[in-house]
């Protein structure tokens, strides 16, 4: 099936198998490998992206379902001049990442969280990120990063 998905502001048209997941389309057809795959049960959230502005796990969406929609991946977060998105900057300043594998998904989920709730409590951040697993940080500095970003 031929689909067209706008990713980070650019339209991508490709012929995909109906069983192709959106995450496969992003990684393999479009070649944006910043979106990572960490599981096969939609448990880990490493593949989180924004679909029409809202965080979704891109392994839970078929590529054909994204036809005509707008996707932002981690590659679309920093400004064209290389300036990091405020959430990326907050993760860096608060040591919110170690191995970095969960990080793109975590950043996408966290920005979506702040879009919905610009001033969350620590508990709201923890609950808001419960769909994204991290094995390195113990979440402590991820939570601090999101709170710091919310404070601006």
């Amino acid at each position, binding site marked *: 099936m031929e689909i067209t998905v706008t990713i980070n502001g650019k339209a991508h048209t490709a012929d995909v*198998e109906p069983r192709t997941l959106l995450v496969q389309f992003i*990684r393999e057809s479009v*070649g*944006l*490998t*910043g*979106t*990572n*795959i*960490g*599981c*096969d*049960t939609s*448990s*880990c959230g*490493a593949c989180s992206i924004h679909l029409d502005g809202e965080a979704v796990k891109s392994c839970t969406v078929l590529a054909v379902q994204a036809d005509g929609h707008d996707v932002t*991946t*981690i*590659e679309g*977060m*920093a400004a064209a001049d290389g300036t*990091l998105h405020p959430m*990326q900057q907050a*993760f*860096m*300043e608060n*040591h919110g*990442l*170690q*191995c*970095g*594998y*969960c*990080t*793109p998904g975590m*950043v996408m989920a966290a920005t979506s969280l702040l879009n919905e709730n610009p001033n969350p409590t*620590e*508990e709201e*951040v*923890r*609950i808001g*990120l*419960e*769909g*994204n*697993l*991290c*094995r*390195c*940080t*113990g*979440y*402590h*500095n*991820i*939570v601090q990063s999101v709170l710091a970003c919310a404070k601006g």
Partner: protein
Amino acid sequence: MTMTDQPTGVLGSRMLRREDPALLTGEARYTADLVVPGALHLAMVRSPYARARIVSVDTAAAVTMPGVRAVYSGADLADTWAGPMPCAWPVTEDMKNPTHLPLAVSQANYVGDAVACVIAETAEAARDAVEAVVVEYEPLEAVIDLEDALSDRVVIHDEIGTNRSYTWDLKIEETEGACDAAFAAAAYAVKERYIQQRLIPAAMEPRAVLAVPQPFGGDMTLYSATQVPHILKVMTALTLGIPEHQLRVIAPAVGGGFGSKLNVYAEELLCVALAKRHGVPVRWTETRSEGCQATIHGRGQIQDIELAADANGRLTGLRVRLIGDMGAYLQLVTPGVPLLGAFLYAGVYELPKAFDFSCTSVFTNMTPTDAYRGAGRPEATYAIERAMDSLAYEIGIDPLELRRRNFIPTEKFPYEAYTGLVYDSGNHDGAATLAAEMVGYDELRERQRSQNVPGATKRIGIGLSTYFEMCGLAPSRVLASLNYGAGGWEAATVRVLPTNKVQVVTGTSPHGQGHETAWSMIVAEKLGISPDDVDVLHSDTAIAPLGLDTYGSRSLAVGGVAIAMTCDKVVDKARQIAAHLLEANPDDLEFAGGEFSVAGSPDRSMPLAAVAFEAFTAHNLPDGMEPNLEAHTTYDPPNFSWPFGTHICVVEVDTETGETEVLRYVAVDDCGNQVNPLIVDGQVHGGVIQGLAQALFEEAVYDSDGNLRTSTLAEYLVPAASDVPPVITGHTVTPSPTNQLGVKGVGEAGTIAATPAVINAVVDALSGLGVRNVPMPASPNTVWSIINAAQGGSQ
């Protein structure tokens, strides 16, 4: 809250990580991200049985499927291997090690054991073809229980005739019978059994492999999500019989390891073997379900520990009996894991030479175990810290007081322990005092007394863990005495380029630890330059040919120290050149802030930048001196390093639901001098939550037929942010006297300390209800059942 009084200059500053921008923007490339045209995809046919004879493998249907290039059974490839899958740690002369090939030939021995494989043009085609491979199995009875395995009722591997791999003893007595005598004379004694459940390491990046051959030149490049590119290179060369100098191993960005990527795996060997055979790149990316089954598990021990103490509660004897679960085969260091813990069973306490340790390790029909964050040391620390709480209960004193009575006094360091190992430095009372202050220990005990009254359903528990982490693996001669198959050194090269930029080549192989940042800080401090002018090269055996990689909290204490020593050599050479050019005696030159100056004549000076350029042009060097400013060190540490600390966990247990809420977690860690406290705290946070996860959430569950019931992240409970508390960190700083940086290491401290702290807190909360022990993971169901049993089943 961080208490450290150390920072000076670059070392000790909370410098942000240079690794982060690439990781934060998706620019970093993990192995599965690498694009190589024409690569074939490998997929594995895995046994659905825990133990079964392979009667036949029919590949006829699979091989004709679209896109499929070849299908191989274990028998088809049996001649490919020059040797079996490697185990580098034959702990005893008579250790039994059954043949372990990348594809099993005659018998599968765990669910997930690979029996055949497919290579195809796409990953989907390969997986589809796996479904079409017809393997006829004759299911055999599986052995899951460790004591059942020990009985040899069913012998798993016919070729070795027993399920026992080895028995390893460590008996240390002042005079023969000292341990038995200590127990005979003990005023107090406790005898406990603890179960270290199996854990799934679950690094967030699944394993991935890509082998790229150069068919006409004969060279092979192996990309792998590994912690150990150097070890992998040697072992791949040996196992496949290919010349080591034609093999290059690269670990690109690696998404966590925790020991699970400290190994040599079937898929790595298969990708190389099949890339060589077919003359095209071959790649494989693990699915999470495969990872749960076929990447090593951690822990898996039954621990019997006995403490003897005098009337004051001071330890007089210690006896430990372990049964270690090796799983179906021995992986790279599987049998050595219990040995790494053997030296830590007396924890941070003084013990006379009255120690009796024995470990018998057995095969089972489950996924092989191996090193998982801490590797033997968390198990040992759990046992002694839980047993100390039991002893305190027996004596009727506060667990903190009992620990204080047994701490090795600060003034006795360096301290030669009962094992003969020398603990470099310590201040156990200092760390315990700070942790107690930070958590508000005395007030909490008051609150506990008023809250945990008869009938109370929300009960407070306070759990302590005062720990040692044996780090800096390892002095090579000590490893020799343990029969380990390699050394414990680390290599470094420091190269000052003509423009005064610096390349550091390290044999460590980071996968989240921030070595690029930390190593650049060490060089910056030593050479008086900006960290931004230092590039750190690693994880590619063509660029960093010498190294022993990253595991066992060794990277800083061995690899980082090697870099500092190499910087000294660079400065020594630069000093000779500067003295020559300044027409001064080298001994009269001072080096500070990146500049040489003649003592007493500050106008006569020369920056390192100028020396570097002179070394490069070589126009005017001292007679006989080689051009360029570069030095190399291979450093074999004289001793382990011994970080320590006190963790205190406060929980509230709801006796009606069995639910445990962690109210507060304080971690005071002393890892000696800190290169970068930001990174140190990050290591502690992550380690603590991983240790807490063992205590409360995680367990690899098998049914009696050997089926893994927790083979996805939907079933295996890696905690989420909402499941865990914040971690309040504090530090004392007791430098190690055995290396010039005074550093010790911190990678596993949190995991070692946290598990017993959490369980001690849960047991403490329930002690008024007659509960003396709670098995891990202390899930609500388990805790509720334990309370119910302790209350005589009245609930």
